[in-house]
């Protein structure tokens, strides 16, 4: 084995061999322990969060801030037929579904354009119809976060 740590004296008189074998056993032990520990503590599914603050129309203990007139009020409405992006109460763009899939590319482009026009705004309200799957809500919030719109609030619409 590779256990011999000290250089072996050669048979030919007092001439010492230059060969030296490292003692690898403790190193292998250390690696084995490390691998066992890391395997036991490994987290294979990376779960994270998307942070959302409560919208004022839902009940909360916190007092609602007074409405600001200059607020952009950027809203993304998720309907069963597609997205509607609006700001200051006016519709910016209606994005229809492409087949069965929501057109996220166009939504990203529209949001990018709005962010470029109003770089100071970081708030967005995501509203959704009741029948929309939860994944679509998350996808829209994800797209908003990609465009630095991190002040997300969620609201529902009565359908």
């Amino acid at each position, binding site marked *: 084995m590779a256990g011999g740590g000290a250089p072996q004296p050669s048979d030919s008189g007092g001439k010492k061999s230059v060969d030296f074998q490292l003692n690898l056993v403790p190193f*292998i032990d250390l690696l084995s322990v490390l691998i066992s520990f*890391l395997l036991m503590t490994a987290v294979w599914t990376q779960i994270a*969060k998307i942070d959302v603050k409560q919208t004022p129309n839902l009940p909360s203990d916190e007092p609602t801030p007074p409405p600001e007139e200059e607020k952009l009020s950027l809203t993304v409405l998720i309907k069963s037929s597609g997205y509607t992006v609006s700001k200051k109460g006016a519709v910016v763009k209606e994005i229809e579904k492409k087949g069965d899939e929501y057109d996220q*590319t166009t939504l990203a482009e529209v949001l990018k354009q709005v962010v470029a026009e109003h770089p100071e705004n970081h708030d967005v309200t995501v509203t959704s119809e009741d029948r929309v799957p*939860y994944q679509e809500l998350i996808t829209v919030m994800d797209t908003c976060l990609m465009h630095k719109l991190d002040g997300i609030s969620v609201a529902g619409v009565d359908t």
Partner: protein
Amino acid sequence: MPIKKPGKKPFAPWLKKHRALTGGKGKKQGVADLLLTPLIDMFVILVVFLIMNFSASGELITISKDIQLPKATSTAELDRAPIIQISANTIAIEGIKVGDSEEILKDPDLRIPSLTDKLQEMRKVDEMMHPGQPFKGQIIVNCDKDIDFKLVRKVMFAAADAGYSNFNYAVLVIGAGGEEGGEGGGASEG
């Protein structure tokens, strides 16, 4: 224990010409060196891979079979908070069932009293445990990706009724990188 001299055939055919077995000058020795270098190489690669995947925060959420989490790229790291689980069959808080999803969906009332009561209890416990500190009102929503938004909305309403207004939607992180690998994800995905 005496060391026995091995037989003519080496224990591994690929070591037939190994110096330690043949003894250099044709004289056979009884000691065989194991090739440790590939073993250590493999160990090192394994350690590096595991360290790259290592998460100090551990696993806060255990995913049940009924719940398939939605996927996202722009995410933040999860904190410890009460967990509401919403599956197609049940709604549970910290593993305790508070209602059937279908019944709650059919109910025209937006409130879920059983969930609100349970959350209020948890809020009281939280305030007792952390006196003098402001109540964060954080809650983790662990919801199946195919659930209708109506159910999520009802749960949000019930949670807000109990004073929980900071919602953390649990998602699976997609793409390479860790929990915070969000910003450079590329807008044109999907």
